[in-house]
């Protein structure tokens, strides 16, 4: 008999529809006189919203992951990048995106919809290069903002201004590039949306502290992706509000994501996107991944709560802070993004280790499975130091090598047999009970 009751998520289909709509809006923008721009999920999309509601982003990482799901097309894209001379140890998303661009084929069918301009920021070394190549190939303007100003815990006025001034300089560039006049009201609304959606996502992750966990990481991948597609859109913020309420209800009723949950784990970095059945295999041991710093903190914005635990960062509105001018909006947006958990470990692995240990403690986890992701330097930076730190703190850790979007460097069966050994060290055997 299963330990906990389970039920499918009611808003699951809505997430799927919203995701598809965001891609379609981008692809069909020109038909409605709209504009298309491309950048990363970490770009300041709220700023671009000042140009109008019909300016749609294509963020490279979720698109790269969507290509990775389609292994045959992904292979052609990787080969196309190879043939252009790009080395294979570069960011795997970037190579899938470029391959799709070089082949002029959109993973959802039809031609690759070219961006009208590229707008990006520079913290992960691949990101700024990624869109420089896109702008050179598609012959479109490119603006990049440097946000590598150091960890949020050591923020100073001058460091914050360094980013705010670049945001301010970007506005005349956006106007010149698109011929549109910038609307501060739309910027302010977008900043509120972004704070709301990313704070709500952090709240949803915090609800996963409950035992049994209402969400498992495999499902969270299809939910957090909306934040990576367009975090400053009202539709995404509203969806997360609805999801937060449903998850709250699941916790109240003790609904679990995994019926036989008896071993809670965290993972790390993006998974090998074509092989999410690793998580189904874990369930055969009654093991569930309740999330990771990646799923929580790539878009989610966290802060210390009054009771000392880790939870959602309160939004300006919740704190009663009004955003009246362009200057206020830029300062709030810069400060809000610089506190992003996944922007900290670029400066020292210990920042990440502390956050991982905090998640393990507060989300009551028994161990960690780290994906040594050859496809992403940005997130695998210092992962062996993180492993060492977790072990020093007595947390059992398993690692497996792979690549998030190039299956040639991943071996599913070898990884599953590692899971067997890891589960044995945690004292768990496969559940014979056929659920």
């Amino acid at each position, binding site marked *: 008999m299963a330990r906990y009751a389970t039920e499918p998520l009611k808003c699951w289909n809505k997430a799927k529809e919203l995701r598809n709509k965001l891609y379609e809006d981008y692809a069909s923008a020109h038909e409605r006189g709209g504009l298309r721009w491309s950048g990363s999920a970490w770009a300041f999309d709220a700023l671009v919203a000042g140009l109008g509601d019909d300016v749609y982003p294509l963020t490279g990482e979720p698109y790269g992951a969507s290509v990775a799901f389609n292994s045959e097309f992904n292979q052609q894209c990787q080969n196309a990048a*190879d*043939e252009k*001379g*790009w*080395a*294979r140890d570069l960011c795997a998303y970037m190579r899938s995106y470029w391959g799709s661009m070089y082949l002029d084929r959109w993973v959802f069918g039809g031609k690759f919809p070219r961006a009208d301009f590229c707008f990006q920021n520079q913290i992960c070394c691949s990101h700024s290069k990624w869109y420089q190549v896109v702008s050179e190939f598609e012959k479109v303007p490119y603006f990049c903002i440097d946000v590598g100003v150091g960890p949020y815990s050591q923020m100073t006025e001058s460091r914050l201004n360094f980013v705010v001034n670049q945001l301010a300089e970007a506005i005349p560039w956006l106007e010149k590039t698109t011929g549109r006049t910038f609307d501060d009201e739309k910027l302010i609304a977008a900043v509120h949306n972004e704070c709301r959606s990313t704070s709500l996502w952090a709240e949803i992750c915090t609800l996963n502290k409950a035992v049994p966990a209402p969400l498992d990481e495999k499902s969270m991948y299809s939910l957090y992706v909306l934040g990576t597609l367009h975090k400053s859109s009202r539709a995404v913020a509203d969806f997360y509000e609805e999801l937060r309420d449903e998850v709250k209800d699941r916790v109240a009723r003790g609904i679990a994501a995994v019926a036989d949950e008896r071993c809670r784990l965290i993972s790390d970095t993006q998974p090998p996107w074509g092989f999410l059945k690793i998580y189904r295999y874990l369930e055969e041991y009654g093991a569930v991944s309740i999330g990771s710093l990646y799923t929580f903190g790539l878009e989610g914005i966290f802060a210390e709560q009054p009771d000392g635990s880790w939870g959602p960062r309160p939004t300006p509105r919740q704190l009663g802070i009004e955003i009246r001018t362009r200057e206020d909006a830029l300062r709030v947006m810069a400060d809000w993004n610089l506190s992003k958990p996944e922007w900290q470990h670029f400066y020292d692995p210990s920042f990440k280790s502390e956050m991982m240990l905090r998640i393990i403690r507060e989300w009551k986890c028994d161990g960690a499975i780290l994906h040594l992701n050859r496809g992403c330097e940005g997130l695998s930076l210092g992962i062996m130091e993180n492993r060492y730190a977790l072990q020093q703190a007595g947390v059992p850790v398993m690692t497996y090598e792979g690549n998030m979007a190039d299956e040639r460097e991943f071996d599913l069966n070898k990884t599953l047999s590692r899971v067997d050994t890891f589960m044995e060290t945690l004292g768990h055997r496969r559940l014979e009970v056929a659920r």
Partner: protein
Amino acid sequence: MIANYGYRDGSGEYFITIDTDRCVPCQDRACVAACPKGLFEIVEDDYDDRVAAIKDSLRKRVNYECMDCKPTHDVPPLPCVTACAAGAVAHSW
């Protein structure tokens, strides 16, 4: 004849292409001196023509040898490519 010297291994594909038909009338053999790492040499090919080729000892190291001429951004025109008046030399990466 188009000769592709180089390789493809786990890290990528690297080939230097020489169109040897254009080497036959060439007098000054500028490519040999132009390459700072001495990759080029003049050999007699199987059809008894004197043509340029990449040295056998360096053929499997072209990616490492050519790195000096290929900084990560705004790569200047390659010395071997510009030195060859007949435009017989090209790089695949």
